[in-house]
């Protein structure tokens, strides 16, 4: 029983000690003075004083320590014959221990570090910065430590590593530590370093180990060689996994774009048997609508600027839906029994639209300012980097698909669309206003294309002819998935997106397109109406 209480008290005490150590209690001025006098004494004590300065800064007195360090490096630190040293350079001379102004400027010359000391100070300063609350400062410091890895203080860097949350900085620090360890004379330390490098697989660490192996081929002991080779294998495995993941990820995001682009096409094709060659231009109009929204928000609502992408979603949908319905009213409805001529008529509309946009906005790419939250991305692990814009594309595509699916499957409007798609004449004789359904469905399809345009602004360049390159792929999705089938569209856009992105890095974009084409022709041999053909009796 006493053992239990003993342990409890012990634990409480150790927690209290830990808390006391963590809470930053600045040094008293006499303690500071002692440290600096050691420094001013010169000789070997100077190095230990710097180490102490760093450890003091890391532990409890960061601000003061950083202040002195900067002064030391910039030639603003004046040792005096008697009394406290002085920091000059910021207009008024300060007492280095209390940071209070002193009366008159010192007569002595400031301290000028030697080249060796300069290097030591640079590392020391970077080490101090590793504990800065600002991520950017820490990142720069980590890069600095990595460059000067030979001079770093391993205990300190390990401590920084333990406190660090940012994966990127962590990786830099581990590599820096490992580099130092690899150059060590002690085999045990080398082995430890090799194992540490294997923990952080990346192209950099791979190059590091490969070079290490090549440089020390003759002098290295067999155990280290084996360990290095094993580490290289581990790193290669991870890099491969990373590569596979990033290919799958980019395939997924491409599939998202295809899904947005093809969904509207599929609904219209399934319902009306009409191929809308102007579909790509609705994508383009959606992108340009986003552009206009962006510029308007920039001019009139700069505070809300980052939200422009969300404002653009409904605006682009409505603009494109209106364009689509106009096209239906003016052209398509006269051509319903003549699908091939619809193709030509919509092509005519598409070249006119491209030229119109070219005249209005110019034929160059328009520049977009990416909203802050879509900039950059996150390193998941070695070689696998996800970018927020692609995540946005995937999420939006899923949202659009879910909405469209709900609309078609669970609303009255969707019911009428399905009825008209499956048996137009029966639906009409039961009182379904087929013409109005056609018009609304066409508007819906065009609106969905507009949403694809919004997503594309964050991923590719926006220019008047951007639609043509996407529309061919979107057609392929519809042909493969089966016209009018939402699930088919989703499955086939996923398949085509992944195939495209798997083949593209290996054999190039052309091979990807050709492979997709061949695959579709082969599949269509067995299933002429696509994978998920609807049973229709039009």
């Amino acid at each position, binding site marked *: 029983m006493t053992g239990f209480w003993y342990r409890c008290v012990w634990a409480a005490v150790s927690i209290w000690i830990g808390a006391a150590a963590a809470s930053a209690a600045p040094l008293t001025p006499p303690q500071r003075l002692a440290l600096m006098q050691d420094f001013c004494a010169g000789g070997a004590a100077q190095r230990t004083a710097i180490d102490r300065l760093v450890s003091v800064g890391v532990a409890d007195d960061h601000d003061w320590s950083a202040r002195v360090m900067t002064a030391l490096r910039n030639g603003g630190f004046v040792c005096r014959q008697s009394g406290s040293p002085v920091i000059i350079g910021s207009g008024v001379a300060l007492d280095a221990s209390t940071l209070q102004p002193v009366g008159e400027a010192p007569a002595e010359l400031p301290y000028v570090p030697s080249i060796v000391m300069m290097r030591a100070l640079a590392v020391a300063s970077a080490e101090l910065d590793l504990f800065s609350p600002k991520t950017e400062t820490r990142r720069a410091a980590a890069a600095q430590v990595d460059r000067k890895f030979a001079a770093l203080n391993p205990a300190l860097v390990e401590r920084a590593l333990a406190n660090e949350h940012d994966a990127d900085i962590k990786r830099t620090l581990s590599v820096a530590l490992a580099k130092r360890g690899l150059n060590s004379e002690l085999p045990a330390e080398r082995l430890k370093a090799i194992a540490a490098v294997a923990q952080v697989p990346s192209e950099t660490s791979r190059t590091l180990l490969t070079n290490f192996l090549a440089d020390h081929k003759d002098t290295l002991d067999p155990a280290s060689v084996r360990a290095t080779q094993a580490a290289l294998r581990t790193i290669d495995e991870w890099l491969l996994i990373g590569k596979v993941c990033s290919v799958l990820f980019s395939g997924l995001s491409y599939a998202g774009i295809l899904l947005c682009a093809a969904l509207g096409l599929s609904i219209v094709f399934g319902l009306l048997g009409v*191929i809308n060659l102007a579909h790509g231009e609705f994508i383009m109009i959606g992108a340009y609508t986003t552009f206009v929204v962006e510029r308007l928000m920039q001019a009139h609502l700069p505070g809300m600027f980052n939200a422009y992408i969300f404002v653009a979603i409904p605006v682009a949908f409505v603009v494109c839906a209106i364009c689509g319905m106009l096209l239906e009213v003016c052209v398509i409805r*006269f051509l319903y029994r003549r699908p091939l001529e619809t*193709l030509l008529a919509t092509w005519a*509309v598409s070249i*006119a639209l491209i030229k119109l946009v070219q005249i209005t906005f110019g034929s160059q790419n328009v520049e977009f300012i990416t909203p802050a939250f879509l900039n950059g991305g996150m390193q998941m692990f070695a070689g696998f980097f996800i970018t927020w814009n692609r995540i946005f594309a995937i999420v939006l595509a899923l949202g659009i698909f879910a909405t469209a699916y709900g609309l078609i499957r669970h609303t009255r409007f969707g019911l009428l669309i399905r009825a008209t798609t499956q048996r137009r004449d029966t639906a009409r004789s039961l009182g379904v206003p087929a013409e109005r359904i056609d018009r609304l469905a066409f508007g819906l399809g065009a609106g969905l294309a507009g949403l694809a345009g919004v997503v594309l602004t964050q991923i590719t360049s926006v220019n008047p002819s951007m639609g*043509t390159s996407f529309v061919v792929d979107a057609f392929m999705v519809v042909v493969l998935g089966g016209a009018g089938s939402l699930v088919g569209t989703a499955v086939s856009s996923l398949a085509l997106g992944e195939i495209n992105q798997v083949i593209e890095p290996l054999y*190039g*974009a052309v091979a990807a*397109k050709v492979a997709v084409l061949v695959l579709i*022709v082969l599949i269509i041999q067995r299933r002429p109406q696509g994978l998920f053909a609807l049973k229709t009796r039009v």
Partner: protein
Amino acid sequence: MSKLAPMLPRQRPYSFALLFVALAAYLPLANFLISAESAFHLSLFGVNLIGQIVCFAMLALALDFVWGLVGILSLGHGVFFGIGGYVMGFYLLNAAYSETKVLPDFMLFMGWHDFPAALRIFEHLPAALGLGIAAAVAAAGVFGLTTFRARINGVYFSIITQALTYALMLLLFNNDLGLGGNNGLTGFTSIAGYRLAEVSTQVWLATASCIALAGAYLLLRAIADSSLGHTLVAVRDDEARLRFLGYRTDRIKLFTWCLSAAVAAVAGMLYVPQVGIINPTIVSPVLSVEIAVWVAIGGRGTLIGAVLGAILVNSLKFWLSAKAPSVWPFILAGITLLITLFLSNGLWSGATLLLRARKTSS
């Protein structure tokens, strides 16, 4: 699918070819004999323009043969035109190399030191002509075999041909393929020993194009008027019924498709020496849709309409895209929309209807 006239209109079906024979006779006259002051004189530019337009007319003729007669809308006829063009380009490169012994620029960029042996098979003009047609027919055969057997019809077929065009264009844009990438093949000097820079060579090429068009028209017209031609129209109007009656409609379609590809390839082979360059834009999906637009404007299913449509649209295009480049797409779009909406069988059918109406009323 709307029903066209059950049979082809039969006004002056064969004599139409005379128009191009006459043009073929006129071109050398107009350039060589008629003096430059005369209104009937044709400059090199004019002759060249006519030659190019006639090549496009031949391409439209090829498309109308499959679309108007059999009901297969190809949005990829530029592929066959391009195949013919590239093969002619290979021949012309051979000719240029044997003359100058200087490798074409793109081969130098590729780091080649010798003319590639694979292109040497196109060394002789007759061989190149045969190979060009053979290549186009082979490509059409493979593609047609897979698609027609799978009974891919209507817009599905059109979309797949468009994708094919797009894929081929991307392929040709690729520099590593060794076909000049986006610059294409150029730097031609002579054809069959005649210098391309000579006026007379260009005149004879344009003349040859006119004669080829007349010949192709007569050939296709003869097929269309034969009993095979009637079968073709039957395939267009009710393929299922014809199949039930025991016809192998896929073979019939394959035959037409390959023949059409051959005509398109010949057009491409005549086109390239006249423009002096062949690059991947010739197989861009846009041009291939445009061919269908020429046919639709002129009137499909009549062969004459397709030729006239191509000539009309291309003449307008040459004229307007120089005068008012930004207006041309709107005019083309406007014409296409008006024709598809209000005159679905095209200008030629409209004209013949008008003529017939006047004849019956008088």
